């Protein structure tokens, strides 16, 4: 560790209702390992001061926890977040800044990077230090997961990367680990209000968030009509899974766009992906083929989805899916 903080690793964490989201906790665990390799200090940055589980971030490996923002946690204030992060990073000069991909990755992180005169390597699935060059090697998929690229920052700092949810497994907390809690008050007056949140509409069509879910159950065109999505929704419920779909059901108005997995929808990488009646067009595969385990159920043995499936089942999904739901429900008691 160097005294000017130049070896520091930061993780920008995300909270909902005062609790840190699971992918952020998992990323802290990964960053702890990276920090341990070269005796760096690990700082968790929370974009809220109301973080009930801040002590947990220390238990998972943070040496320090920064609690930014005013006392009222805002649902959305990108302009303020960018300014706060930039001010803090200019002052402390961290070597690495990590965040989970998702809405931070679509605005706050890249804007912060430009203000700090550095780049971003988004949606990484692997991070390793090259000990010779002391650079962080960031591996990210491109071309719909059919290609991997290693990205490095030869001479700009900080090295900024966002990682896909589930890229790293949650570590084991050590409750005896203590972290320094630092509140950073923020002068809201200094941010010119060029954007303003007027209203929030919560999505009620799915209880589990698609891009964060550990398990995704996806229904495709093979379901035939909108009503039949109830069948996959039941399977999703038993598994505590998020409900996904492919492009045709969205284009036909069966399912809202927010559930679309694929190139023009969401790119997901859960631990388990169950595709029911999904043919597997390249644009769909691009959105899910980095999932850990892929189960495909389709009546057409030549469907391209079977090429990426870990377990394939050729057959009638209207028989298989309810059976699977029943069996899993029994197992749960």
């Amino acid at each position, binding site marked *: 560790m160097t005294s000017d903080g130049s070896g520091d690793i930061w993780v920008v964490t995300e909270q909902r209702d005062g609790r840190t989201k699971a992918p952020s906790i998992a990323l802290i665990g990964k960053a702890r390992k990276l920090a341990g390799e070269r005796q760096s200090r690990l700082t968790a940055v929370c974009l809220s001061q109301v973080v009930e589980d801040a002590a947990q971030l220390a238990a998972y490996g943070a040496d320090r926890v920064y609690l930014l923002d005013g006392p009222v946690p805002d649902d959305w204030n990108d302009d303020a977040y960018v300014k706060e992060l930039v001010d803090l990073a200019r002052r402390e000069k961290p070597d690495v800044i990590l965040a989970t991909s998702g809405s931070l990755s*679509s605005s706050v992180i890249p804007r912060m990077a430009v203000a700090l005169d550095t780049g971003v390597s988004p949606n990484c699935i692997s991070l390793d230090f090259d000990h010779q060059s002391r650079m962080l090697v960031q591996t990210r998929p491109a071309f719909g997961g*059919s290609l991997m690229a290693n*990205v490095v920052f030869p001479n700009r700092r900080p090295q900024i990367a966002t990682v896909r949810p589930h890229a790293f497994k949650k570590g084991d907390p050590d409750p005896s680990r203590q972290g320094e809690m630092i509140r950073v008050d923020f002068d809201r007056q200094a941010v010119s209000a*060029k954007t303003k949140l007027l209203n929030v509409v919560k999505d009620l069509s799915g209880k589990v968030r698609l891009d964060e879910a550990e398990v995704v159950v996806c229904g495709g065109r093979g379901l035939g009509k909108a009503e039949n999505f109830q069948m996959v929704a039941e399977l999703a419920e038993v598994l505590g899974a998020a409900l996904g779909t492919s492009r045709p059901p969205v284009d036909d108005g069966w399912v809202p766009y927010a559930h679309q997995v694929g190139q023009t929808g969401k790119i997901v990488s859960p631990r388990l992906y169950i595709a029911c009646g999904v043919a597997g067009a390249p644009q769909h595969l691009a959105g899910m083929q980095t999932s850990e385990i892929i189960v495909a159920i389709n009546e057409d043995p030549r469907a391209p989805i079977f090429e990426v499936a870990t377990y394939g089942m050729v057959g*009638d999904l209207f028989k298989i899916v309810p059976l699977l739901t029943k069996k*899993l429900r029994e197992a749960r008691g």
Partner: protein
Amino acid sequence: MNVIVCIKQVPAKIKIEIDPKTSALASGGVDRAINPPDLYALEEGIRIKEKTKGKVTVLTVGPAKADESLKEAIGYGADDAVLLSDPAFEGSDTWATSLVLAKAIRKIGQFDLVLCGKQSIDGETGQVGPMLGEALGVPFVSLVNRIDELGQESIKMMRMSDEGHQLIEMTLPGVITVVKEINVPRIPSLRGLMAAKKAAITVWNARELGIDPATVGMAGSPTRVSRVFFPQRASQGEMLQGDPESQVEQLVERLRQTRAI
């Protein structure tokens, strides 16, 4: 209203190959097209122009042949297109690309709204839109799925958030990225196709944009790709045989073994 739409030319098929000698992407001879998510930005830009009797200018950073995509954009209804092209831009990452786009927009001068697609289908970074907003020093909103009100001074719109949707007001000029839900892109009209054929595409190079070549391209980019490789499939997939009962039983057993459930 002056609208600027930024597009990218990408391989039309996402099946790609790596040159085994140089480990660079073998892109020669591959059909190229407008990045599909950018078509929603283009359509929205054209709709705004039609409503406000404004103008749509399309920009792209790319090699000489990227002018085909700009002509295509004129076919859809854009008024003007500028290709930002210079050997010095080659190998630019998202940061350097945003810098080039920002310089071009400054050179154009007058603009109210800049629209970008959510992300490209090749690089899949989704970073150029937000980076461009910051580089221009104007407000930015990502993942817009509906524009509700467009005034001279501000825009009200819905964006997709982690928990659903948010209604946001943003002052103009500003930059937004849009998602597919925002519209259904039109098919180019015959008149559009004729205009595309005749269109002369303006090209601006680094000097004309006032860009120091050392600040862009491979040399000026903060990030560098040190290696590209094909992902390894963990194992060959297994087809579960038998009647539905037996298939389901096998599946549940395997998922238990791998602790997936």
